[in-house]
């Protein structure tokens, strides 16, 4: 196109000013179009490329469709749940067990409530343990399958007043070896029953019988309830104060009294540790004051003298440490400020003392 047949004969050797001006304007117009297209390319609705989560969160509740396990099961298993994930509002305590029944299930009676005075009416002798842990109130309800009244789920919601108390009663009731579940701060499952603690609540969701179906329903009830419970998430003191290294997970327990079966050991956290092939118990307690701590130490010393032989007593400005041979195994106890701690039933004295000293070193007075 650029080659001209007769170059010499072309009379358009000179281009008029108008033509040049128009040409320039057209070139600018093209440049402008290019820029405009590039700019337009950067403006787009991002939800086209990424599904909007706000839209997702407003999805219809699961009411219309059964919650599925891997495959469909007979009718009782296809029970439906009120939507767990949608618009959960923390309910005020009175309503925590309302509307908990899956579709096809119903509460046997109204939700019942028990105080410290009436707790024994519901759980007899076991009430004492809860009362030790400063129990505040129990709310419970029994859910039953409308089509098969032999299937039931009992829900017990214990308000223990403080997270440490809720954890305490959870930890002393826990049996070793049961599969853990992620419910609340910690939880586990036994057949179709679920146990967990969250904030100041300790919860038992007890399902009848066994099998994947009832397990699933129980789990859903537990989850729904769990979402309604408030928890500020602050870690418990004992979890951080007890050393973490080599600690056997799930072994921490909080005793409000009679820790390690010693009647003077109150408000004590104990945990198991792995040392080589052996398991070692370590304990730690924050006493109300230096005096009570000293008194406890004295009691412990008395216990050591009565049932064993004191090997060493060390006193410094910061702490007092006593180690004793309790008949084949060693106990080491120390007091630092208002803290009492130590190790129990360790076979090797030097290892016991080292462990106790390590614990001491990890502590600060105002922990």
């Amino acid at each position, binding site marked *: *196109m*650029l*080659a*001209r*047949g*007769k170059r010499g*004969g*072309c*009379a*358009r050797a000179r*281009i008029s000013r108008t*033509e*040049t001006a*128009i*040409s*320039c304007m*057209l*070139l600018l117009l*093209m440049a402008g179009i*290019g820029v405009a*297209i590039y700019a*337009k*390319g*950067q*403006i*787009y*609705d991002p*939800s*086209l*490329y990424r*599904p*909007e989560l*706000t*839209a*997702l969160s*407003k*999805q*219809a509740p*699961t009411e219309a*469709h*059964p*919650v*599925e396990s891997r*495959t*469909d099961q007979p009718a009782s298993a296809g029970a439906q749940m009120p939507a767990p994930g949608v618009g959960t509002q923390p309910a005020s305590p009175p309503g925590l067990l309302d509307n908990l029944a899956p579709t096809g299930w119903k509460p046997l009676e109204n939700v019942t409530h028990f105080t410290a005075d009436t707790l024994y009416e519901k759980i007899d002798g076991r009430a004492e343990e809860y009362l030790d842990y400063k129990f505040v109130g129990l709310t419970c309800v029994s859910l039953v399958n409308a089509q098969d009244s032999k299937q039931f789920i009992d829900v017990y919601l214990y308000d223990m007043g403080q997270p440490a108390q809720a954890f305490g009663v959870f930890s002393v009731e826990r049996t070793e070896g049961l599969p853990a579940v992620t419910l609340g701060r910690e939880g586990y499952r036994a057949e179709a029953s679920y146990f967990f603690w969250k904030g100041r609540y300790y919860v038992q969701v007890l399902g009848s019988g066994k099998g994947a179906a009832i397990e699933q329903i129980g789990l859903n009830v537990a989850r729904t309830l769990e979402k309604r419970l408030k928890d500020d998430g602050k870690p418990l003191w004992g979890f951080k104060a007890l050393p973490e290294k080599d600690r056997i997970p799930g072994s921490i327990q909080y005793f409000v009294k009679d820790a390690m079966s010693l009647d003077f050991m109150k408000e004590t956290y104990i945990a198991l540790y792995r040392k080589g092939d052996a398991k070692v118990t370590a304990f730690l307690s924050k006493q109300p004051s230096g005096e009570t701590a000293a008194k406890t130490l004295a009691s412990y010393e008395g216990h050591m003298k009565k049932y064993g032989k004191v090997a060493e007593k060390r006193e410094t400005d910061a702490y007092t440490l006593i180690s004793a041979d309790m008949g084949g195994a060693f106990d080491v106890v120390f007091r630092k400020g208002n803290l009492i701690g130590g190790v129990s039933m360790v076979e090797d004295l030097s290892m016991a003392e080292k462990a106790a000293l390590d614990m001491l070193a990890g502590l600060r007075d105002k922990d």
Partner: protein
Amino acid sequence: MDMRITRVRLISQIFFIGLALFFAFITQFSYLKGYPVSLFLEVDPLVAIASSITTHTLYRSLIWSLVILIPTLVLGRFFCNWICPYGTLHQFVGWLFSNRGPRGVKERLESNRYRKWFALKYYILIGMLVAAAFGSLQIGLLDPICLFFRSLTISVLPAVDMASGWIYVQPFVYQFAWVVGPILIFFVAMNLVIPRFFCRVLCPLGALLGLLSRVSLWRIERDEQRCDNCKLCLQRCQGASDPHTALRKSECLVCFNCLDDCPHGALGFSMLPSSPHHEVAVPDLSRRRVIFAGLTGLLFFSFSRASGEITKNFKKEVMRPPGSTAEPEFLERCAKCGQCMRVCPTNVLQPAMLEAGVEGIWTPVMNMKMGYCELNCTLCGQVCPTGAIQKISIAQKLGVGEFTDLGPVKTGTAFFDQGRCLPWAMDTPCVVCQEVCPISPKAIFSREVEIVNRWGKKITLTRPFVDPTLCNGCGICEHECPVKDYRAIRVTAVGETRSRDRSLLLK
């Protein structure tokens, strides 16, 4: 370096064909962003006018066609030689294979002579517009922009990718590429016989713009005093518009080559004709042929609708992209441009041949063997210039948020072929279909059965079923089914939400 208008025109052609190829390349998930990749189709006046005839509305961005339409009314068919990428392609190929030297002058003069049968494009246009008046949009078959992008999508880009691997992540193929590709090659090759063959003989858009040029104020003007009838202005005349005698306004492509080629400077671009018999404003059409063309358009519509593919005999394989309008309206809107097929990330959209009837040639249908409809994707609707596929959000497609009452968009329903399904017919575990079903809760559920197999062993099989209330026809189950030749679960069109007529369940 002077700034003559022909130079600028050349730059403009390169710019716009570059832009068109750029759009064709970036029309895919990773690059698309907000680029107006269907811009050429949206400014195409034929697409705008024909679709407004069929639907009685002007869809969204088609209003941009005024940007081409209005200047055409003033300046003539500048679009054909300044913007149209297909025109540029023809001109380039013609130039490449022409005899450019001084010895070819006579040949070139002869090839750029006006021929009577260049009027064919007007008859084609009329036929198509009459068909449009009755509700069938067929301009897409020969509209140059639609043809250009469609050919790129279906034939050219897959071929380029086969050679280089630059276009797709995993290679895309399109059925009937063996038809669309050769058609493109044929039209382009015809430039060796007659330059700008397609533009002069077949292009309905060119015909439309030619008719609109009738009222144009500016045109090529020949100064009779200077002209010595050497006819050298025909050397590179693109439109074969007889600038050497009475200019055929409807054929002139405003390429300005004649201005450069005239040795006497007798040609110019001016507003008012010095004498009226210097221009032929209206194309050379015979009334009989016009009526014949119109009748063809009408009969085409009647006979194709009478074949029943839209209504009674609708084919189960014709599943349209999500967000499509119901079939009669779809055929009023689809310009067969192939943009949806290009942007679709899974290669499920394929050009139909006759599955959707003769009106539906090259319209998009889903082929689940080749792909499936990705759940969180509505890209096809974003690039559709005419609204055959509506621009829906992902929330609307899934039926969530504010669209919960409306429910999800369904393009069909899946059905099991229990004679081919492994756990149903062959005592073999599988349920890939259930695994990949993207809906929650899954639209495929299962029941466990215990059977004794042929060797006397008790085995448990998981047998799948479709829940039609939940299935949205996306087809990933069919796509992933291991019975690869003829899948044991197949999606068909019934149950699609775009058509009440084709629904399956009572709401």
